[in-house]
């Protein structure tokens, strides 16, 4: 955990069907909130990197850029986008891509990731990660979008598996096959969100351990952990909601251990976006993940 903010090398598009080579340190961290920046800059927690949503840093000036610049002097960064709408039928917005490109150039992060989801339509921006059917048609569309994003940004991206609450009618591709085909065809890496695995598998009555077992771990450049809220659907069946508002549960920690036992240590991020506690609570969650990475290294 001594590697501090070196100038990161832009992950080049590696070409189809290559293992993803992450430029993020293979250590654990937590999502950076603006309100925590001052404390973090004065206490210098022993972490290698932080992750932020680029959409919050697209203003011209102000405290957000001031603090992120100072954080970047000490730590590596991951930009984790929520607004590209890669899963939508329409090509991602060229203005939004331009803003992303400017941020990537300004902050030289070690990683850029986005979601297998959509959030924009002609009607506007929904500010949520919405689901898409998993068909060959949508797989082709997402591949075209990722090709466009990667060539416009000149940057290899990671695509994250989603939390979903509904599915679609008609024959659907398996989510892992869908993601694997995208990674293989476009050369993008994958971001394995273990909480999303648990949420989606519970919501759609699939086995999360099998999901982790069958996931193409060579493409994984980062792992996410987070908390979710339990609810019930119309028939009284469990419906988990990816709320990012609490601690990671034991079942998700177990899936995480399984994932890094198979794929080896990965850059790991704890997400906590609502009812955000003081940052030492986030640090504690990140340390739990770091302990698991250490144990795996010792066992290997």
């Amino acid at each position: 955990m001594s590697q501090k903010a070196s100038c990161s090398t832009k992950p080049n598009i590696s070409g189809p069907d290559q293992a993803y080579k992450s430029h993020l340190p293979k250590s654990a961290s937590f999502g950076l909130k603006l309100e925590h920046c001052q404390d973090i800059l004065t206490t210098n927690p022993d972490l290698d990197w932080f992750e932020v949503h680029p959409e919050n840093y697209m203003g011209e000036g102000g405290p957000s850029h001031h603090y992120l610049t100072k954080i970047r002097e000490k730590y590596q960064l991951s930009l984790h986008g929520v607004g590209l709408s890669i899963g939508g039928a329409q090509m991602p917005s060229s203005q939004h891509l331009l803003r992303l490109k400017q941020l990537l150039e300004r902050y030289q992060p070690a990683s850029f990731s986005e979601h297998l989801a959509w959030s924009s339509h002609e009607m506007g921006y929904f500010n949520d990660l919405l689901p898409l059917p998993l068909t060959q048609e949508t797989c082709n569309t997402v591949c075209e979008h990722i090709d466009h994003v990667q060539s416009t940004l000149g940057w290899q991206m990671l695509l994250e598996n989603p939390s979903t609450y509904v599915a679609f009618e008609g024959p659907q591709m398996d989510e892992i096959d869908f993601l694997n085909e995208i990674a293989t065809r476009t050369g993008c890496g994958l971001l394995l969100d273990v909480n999303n695995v648990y949420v989606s598998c519970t919501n759609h009555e699939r086995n999360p351990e099998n999901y982790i077992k069958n996931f193409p771990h060579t493409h994984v450049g980062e792992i996410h952990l987070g908390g979710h809220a339990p609810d019930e659907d119309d028939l009284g069946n469990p419906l988990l909601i990816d709320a990012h508002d609490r601690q990671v549960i034991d079942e998700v920690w177990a899936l995480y251990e399984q994932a890094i036992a198979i794929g080896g240590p990965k850059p790991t991020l704890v997400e906590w976006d609502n009812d955000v506690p003081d940052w030492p609570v986030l640090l504690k969650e990140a340390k739990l993940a770091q302990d698991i990475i250490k144990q795996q290294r010792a066992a290997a």
Partner: protein
Amino acid sequence: MSTWPDLQTSVSKALMEPNMDPPDGVKRLKNGAVPVKRFNVYRNNVALSLINVLRQTFPVVAELVGKDFFDTMARHFSRTHLPESPMMFQYGDKFPGFIKDYEPAQTLPYLKDVAHVEWARNVALYAKDQTSVAIDQLAQFQQDQMPDVKFDLQASLQLINSDWPVITIWQAHQGQGEQINLSKLPDHGQSAVILRPHLEVNVHQVDPITAYFIAQLQQGQSFGQAVEASVSQQTTFDISANLAGLFSIGAVTAAHL
């Protein structure tokens, strides 16, 4: 089976219509019923996330009307005004105008102006960073050049002119736990200059004539033109006090001919 563009349009429409069933194409439950509760997770995420964005940007409006009133008002707004981009700090520019016409808020006629103050602060927060200059910059000009001098003002600078004591109301809700004594509120309107010379956004209550003077400068009038216009509005306009005040709040980034 509809294609993805058509299905995406149907889902988008259903997201914004709380009483519409999830569209065909969304998988039915095992008993054949439409998955209303499951689909509502997305509806709630969209609505609540946008209400939260508005609450963060307009905290004093939210305090003034209380949680339930604010949530209902923000929900109505978000249903008819989806964000135009994923940059949530830009969401809410039309909220003050919406409040002005929102029927249940008509008993609080100053509410829209409080929203204007909060929106101006938000715009200032994300505006371009610029360095302010001190009044000694003016030493470079001869006395007879002064009327032709033009001032570049902070990109973050915004002016508020309200028929209500909106700054007093706003200040009473800055976390000091003070309650406004409505009977002690000033009985006249207020003006303010809002700007961010460094990291913090400042709200300066000013006389309406000062706001008028700064507005002239902001529109590109020279110092002489702005003074002339201000004096014609109010013969007692204090030129040197206003000039000093302009620099002391960090409003000026450059002075030039």
